C-alpha cells in the first residue's frame, strides 16, 4: 500500500515536470508578452501543483504541500494579472496578427 502511494507520487511529480517543460516551451515560442504569460501561468501553475501533490504523496502525507498548493493557486494568477496590466499600461503592443484590443479602444474613448 505504502509503496503504491510513493510510486503514485513519483508519477505525479513526473507529469508536473512535463507540464512545466511545456510552459517553458510556450514561453520561448509564443510571440508577445500576453501570450507568453498565458503559457507561463497556466502550465506552470498546474505543473507546480502536480509536483507539490506528488511530494504530498511520496513524502508521507506532508500537509505543508497542500498549503503550498493553495497559495500558488491564489498568487500565480494574481501576479500574471499584475504583469499583464502593467505591460498594457506601459503601452506594450499586442502581436501584429492580434484580432481585437477592446481595452485600447475603450481607453481612447475616455
Amino acid at each position: 500500500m505504502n509503496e503504491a502511494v510513493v510510486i503514485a507520487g513519483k508519477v505525479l511529480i513526473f507529469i508536473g515536470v512535463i507540464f512545466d517543460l511545456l510552459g517553458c516551451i510556450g514561453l520561448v515560442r509564443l510571440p508577445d508578452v500576453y501570450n507568453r504569460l498565458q503559457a507561463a501561468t497556466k502550465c506552470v501553475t498546474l505543473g507546480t501543483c502536480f509536483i507539490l501533490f506528488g511530494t504530498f504523496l511520496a513524502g508521507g502525507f506532508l500537509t505543508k504541500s497542500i498549503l503550498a498548493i493553495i497559495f500558488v493557486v491564489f498568487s500565480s494568477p494574481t501576479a500574471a494579472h499584475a504583469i499583464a496590466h502593467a505591460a498594457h499600461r506601459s503601452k506594450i503592443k499586442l502581436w501584429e496578427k492580434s484580432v481585437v484590443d477592446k481595452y485600447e479602444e475603450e481607453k481612447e474613448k475616455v
Partner: protein
Amino acid sequence: MKKLVLFIVSFITWLILTWTVYLPSLLIGVGVSLIVSFWFADIFIRHPQNFFQIKRFLYLLLYIPIFIFYCIVANLDVAYRVLHPKLPIEPGIVKVKTELSTLTGRVALANSITLTPGTLTVELTDDGYLYVHWINVKAIDVEEATKMIVKKFEPILKEVFG
C-alpha cells in the same frame, strides 16, 4: 466578529502548516493568530457573517472539481497550441461583463479566468467589466464573449461569494 473569523482562518492555517498536537506549538499558534487577527481583521474581512453559512462551503466544494477539470483542459489546450508547428493562435483583448457584486467574488472570477482555457484577465473595472486577453478569439461582441468565458463559473461563484 471580524477578528473571530480571521482568528479561525489563521489558526487552521497554522495547524495545517505544523500538523502536530504538541502543546507548546499549539500555544504559539494561538498567540500568533491572535496578533494577526487583531491587527489585520479590518483589512481582510468585509462580510464576516457570510463565513458562518455552511451552504457557501458546500458550493465551494462543488466548485473545486469543476475548476480542476477546466484547468486541466486549459493546460492540454495550451500545450497543443505550443507544440503545433504552425502555432494556431488568434490573440486579442475582449471585454466581458460580470454580475458578481462583491469584491472577493470578482477576484475569484478573475483568477479562475486566468487559470482556464486560453484566457488571461488584464483589467478589472469598478462597474463590473473585465478585460480579458484571449489566445484564440471566437467572439468579439461583449455578450457573446461573456457567454463563452464567464458563464461557466458565475452561477456557482455567485452562491459562494455573492
